[in-house]
């Protein structure tokens, strides 16, 4: 009985971990609605954790503190990104001296790319 309870608790905690998503690009934007042209609620840096509320396919409904909105699913990843440029080159990004507008547009770029991949 104890063993079953422990296994159930472990399974629940694993599920809780899988309910988190992380920003996978240098900057990522949260929108009010499920549209890349919808009002931008906020801009987030790479590896920002979000609680996944619901996966809507192209967009994921997420929340972080008081922020709740939609982020393009392709800009999210289920575990921390080891390739975050701000983590790999922290001082370099510091010296780039990006202002708020630069960070906003860097996040905007990630939404406006039309992406493709040519697999065999």
């Amino acid at each position: 009985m104890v063993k079953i309870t422990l296994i159930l608790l472990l399974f629940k905690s694993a599920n809780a971990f899988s309910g988190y998503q992380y920003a996978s690009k240098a900057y990522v934007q949260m929108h009010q609605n499920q549209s890349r042209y919808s009002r931008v609620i906020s801009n987030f840096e790479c590896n920002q954790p979000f609680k996944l509320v619901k996966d809507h396919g192209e967009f994921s409904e997420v929340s972080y503190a008081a922020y709740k909105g939609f982020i393009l699913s392709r800009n999210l990843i289920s575990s921390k990104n080891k390739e975050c440029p701000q983590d790999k080159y922290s001082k370099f990004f510091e010296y780039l001296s990006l202002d708020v507008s630069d960070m906003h547009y860097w996040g905007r770029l990630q939404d406006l790319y039309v992406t493709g991949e040519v697999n065999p």
Partner: protein
Amino acid sequence: MIKFLLLILISLGSFSKKQMPVNNDFINFENIKGVLKKDQLEKTLTEKQKRAQIQKQKKKSKQMKLYGLPTQDDFWKIMIEHWLVKNITILKWDFRKPDYGVDEYFTNFLRQTGEIGLKFNILYLNTPNISHFAFPMGSNEYLFLVSVPFIKSLDLSKLEISIMLLEDLLRVKNDYFINSFDSKLTSSLSGGSFYQKEFPSKNLKTLMTKIDEKVFEKGFSFQEQHKITKMMNNILISDTQNWQAYYRMLSKIDELVKGNLMYKNYLKIYPSPELQMNWLNPTKN
């Protein structure tokens, strides 16, 4: 009894004088050194010094890592995105547009021509300042800029747009973009670290200016255009429809740049559609 005890003590004292170092030896540091060496404390000290040196090295390399410059794989992606952000007002890529469906068509087209194992991003521009251009974005990753006014003026089909992007892909794969930059300039901004050095901000500004020059003024040479046209001919000739679409696209561009002042700079970047048609013309070859 007391006398007996005294006798024993004196004899022990004389015995200790023979077996142990005399009292004066405790002030004689040479003898202490000998004892310490025998106790291997010197070895322990050396090991501690080595460990401290290793810790110091680790701390230094951790600091150096913080000051790392982008690797070759990440360098152009960061630089090009930085350039796109800084030139938002000129490039006008932040605008509402429909889904033209080019990505799916282009993916199938590339697979058909044998260009597999690559990732691409297309960014549409709401300006004729740049008609089209391709950038390297890391290992087998590319960015294509496409002007919406340009493709609308030419009324290009998805096939013709895909052919135009293939031409751009060949230019970037042949390093025509990367080779136009001084290697000293790019190496000062990539690889290694600027730990305990000045951040190369001047070189960064120079690189941004050089990208502007390449994209807006210098473009590609006649020799590069000739080589690309020949490569395109070899790739597309096996499919008549594709080859004719390429020739038709060049003809459309030639007509546009000769008749529309908005595209008068096109020939500076991509010389010249008329020559390309001559190189392709089967009656002349």
